[in-house]
């Protein structure tokens, strides 16, 4: 539902995809750019919490795609934006899942990425005025 506030946001100048890209690269940044401080903080805490818990549970960070499931896992991981790239470059995350909680950790990391994409799209919708 488009409100007056939404229309103002939609008519504001600047790069319209900035909140989407920023939100993908840094969880919560898209909402912060739009001055939605509370929502941004909750998004950042949730995504970061899931990602860190996933790593703490010895979850796997997908590095390449060897089969269909790996492609889906990599796509989910990429949703984490800079968290994924920085963690890969630091060598964090398990190469192989060897313990039970590692499987949970892998899912936590993938789902954190998928939720981050949803949040980034939400920031884009706020920017374009489709949502208040």
């Amino acid at each position, binding site marked *: 539902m488009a409100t007056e506030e939404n229309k103002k946001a939609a008519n504001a100048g600047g790069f319209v995809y900035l909140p989407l890209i920023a939100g993908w690269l840094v969880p919560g940044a898209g909402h912060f750019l739009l001055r939605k401080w509370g929502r941004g903080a909750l998004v950042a805490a949730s995504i970061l919490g*899931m990602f860190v818990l996933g790593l703490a549970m010895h979850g796997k960070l997908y590095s390449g795609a060897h089969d269909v499931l790996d492609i889906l896992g990599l796509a989910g991981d990429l949703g984490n934006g800079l968290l994924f790239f920085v963690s890969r470059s630091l060598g964090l995350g398990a190469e192989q899942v060897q313990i039970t909680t590692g499987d949970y950790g892998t899912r936590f990391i993938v789902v954190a990425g998928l939720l981050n994409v949803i949040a980034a799209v*939400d920031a884009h919708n706020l920017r374009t005025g489709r949502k208040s």
Partner: protein
Amino acid sequence: MTHFLAVVLFALFASVIFGITQRETPRRMLRYGIYCFLLFAGSAIVLSWIMFLIAR
């Protein structure tokens, strides 16, 4: 970390994002977030009991 705690944390984080992104007003976000959390956690408990009873 226990399996149940992992489920609860997963449900909590996912529900926060769902609440924020799928509703427009703070009150409706909170209500939807709680609704999602209860569905996540409740379905995990129910499915766990079903699997437990099947395995006996």
